[in-house]
């Protein structure tokens, strides 16, 4: 089938027909989006354990608020039976909640075996079941190996969100999982879209889930000198992309899941369409395990690849959701965007929503792609909180402090991961 307006990625076009999100700003797409646009922060003192007492240098993170669903908060037993919760690490819990929201939102309920086999899942995670591995290690260390739960391995494995989603809904198509650290979410959506374009599936449930706000996760990233430690007393100020006082990222937990669908398939069933996946670019730095290359040239190539893939030019992009983690690398990404956009940078809006929810690691790219789709739907771009004084000036409007009304037809989302992996995704209004 050929479409004159089809994306350059392939003949089969892929659109987003369902969205589910669980984040430090709560759950429920409209709730999270409204709070983000209102400039609220989901960052606080870590509540799930006492970071100060453990002598961890970072005491702040973005945790999913607990409470009733009506209040936009999470009560896990509403979603997953208590007896099943202990068979899964928290990243799987969060992934299942977001997937349930996305699938319900899409209205897609396959009725035939062919439909089930044409519906796949690709949900990744950057780290997987870290707390589960920590707990199991203690059991073995204490000489109680025979007491190790038979659910330990399936609780910790990264691809088990995809597994559980397929089992729950009977989705028998491709069952896959991306694992590329903080680029996971974008890779999962981009790769899943390509599976649809290539005809391996008609519908894919795709995204990322992460729950690494645990002592081992905080200790590990602290040890790599990656986390903010200077704002323990003022958590809401800790994530401050591009600001001169930024001192590291703030970890967040959550999940972002989308239902991707072949355009004709979506149209035929009258599905609501949030936008189209039109461009996807990937690159490797071949430079360093944690630091980006000079001028973030890997990011430059990922963005350029996504544009070329989409058959678009920088002038077409209205909004960039930056990787912008609140680390020194923020300015390198800025360099790459300025270089790629040239004069078109003057009309560009670029923000980092990590300023409000922290860095969701393997879920970040998916959640941020969702924010791009919402920016297109509502013609409003979310703010970069705490950008009081940029460490360097730029012609690019980084949407400091407050959201802006802006016409956005096409948006680009960046995600970069340890190991020197970069991915950019472009979404467009349909």
């Amino acid at each position, binding site marked *: 089938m050929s479409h004159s307006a089809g994306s350059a990625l392939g003949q089969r076009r892929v659109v987003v027909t369902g969205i589910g999100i669980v984040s430090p700003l709560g759950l429920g797409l409209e709730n999270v989006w409204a709070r983000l646009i209102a400039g609220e922060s989901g960052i606080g003192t870590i509540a799930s354990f006492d970071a100060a007492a453990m002598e961890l240098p970072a005491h702040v993170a973005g945790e999913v608020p607990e409470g009733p669903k009506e209040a936009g908060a999470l009560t896990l037993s509403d979603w997953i*039976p208590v007896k099943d919760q202990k068979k899964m690490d928290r990243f799987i819990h969060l992934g299942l909640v977001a997937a349930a929201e996305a699938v319900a939102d899409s209205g897609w309920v396959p009725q035939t075996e062919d439909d089930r086999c044409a519906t796949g899942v690709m949900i990744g995670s950057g780290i997987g079941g870290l707390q589960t591995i920590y707990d199991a290690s203690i059991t073995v260390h204490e000489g109680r190996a*025979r*007491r190790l739960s*038979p659910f330990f391995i399936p609780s910790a494995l990264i691809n088990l969100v995809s597994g559980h989603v397929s089992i729950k809904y009977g989705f028998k198509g491709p069952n896959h999982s991306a694992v590329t650290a903080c680029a996971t979410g974008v890779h999962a959506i981009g790769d899943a879209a390509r599976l649809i374009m290539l005809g391996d599936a008609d519908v894919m449930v795709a995204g990322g889930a992460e729950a690494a706000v645990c002592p081992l996760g905080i200790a590990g990233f602290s040890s790599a000198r990656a986390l903010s430690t200077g704002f323990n007393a003022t958590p809401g100020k800790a994530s401050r992309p591009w600001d001169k006082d930024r001192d590291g990222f703030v970890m967040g937990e959550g999940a972002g899941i989308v239902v991707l669908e072949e355009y004709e398939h979506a149209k035929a069933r009258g599905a609501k369409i949030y936008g189209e996946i039109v461009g996807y670019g990937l690159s490797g730095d071949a430079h360093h395990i944690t630091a980006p290359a000079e001028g973030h040239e890997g990011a430059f190539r990922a963005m350029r690849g996504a544009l070329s893939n989409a058959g678009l030019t920088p002038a077409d992009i209205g909004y960039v959701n930056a990787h912008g983690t609140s680390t020194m690398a923020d300015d390198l990404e800025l360099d790459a965007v300025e270089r790629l956009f040239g004069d078109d940078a003057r009309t560009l809006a670029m923000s980092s929503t990590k300023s409000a929810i922290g860095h969701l690691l393997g879920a970040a790219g998916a959640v941020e792609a969702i924010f791009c789709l919402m920016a297109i739907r509502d013609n409003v771009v979310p703010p970069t909180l705490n950008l009081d004084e940029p460490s360097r000036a730029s012609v690019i409007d980084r949407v400091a402090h407050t959201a802006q009304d802006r016409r956005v037809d096409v948006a680009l989302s960046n995600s970069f991961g340890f190991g020197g992996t970069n991915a950019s995704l472009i979404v467009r209004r349909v």
Partner: protein
Amino acid sequence: MSEIADKVKKIVVEHLGVEESKVTPDASFIDDLGADSLDTVELVMAFEEAFSVEIPEDAAEKIATVKDAIDYIEKQKAA
């Protein structure tokens, strides 16, 4: 009902998330109480922990119903 039977029942209810009334002596963990093979492994571990007994794998494989579990543990405790 013996103290052991009471405790076994409680563990089954807790681990399998089933109604107490369904946990009858003849109830099969897999056929009647919705357990899968991993659930039964975990259940046997919970019995071992709760009663401070060791249930070797070949014995564990023969424990299919609530009564099987109670009988095995009572025998171990009496020995």
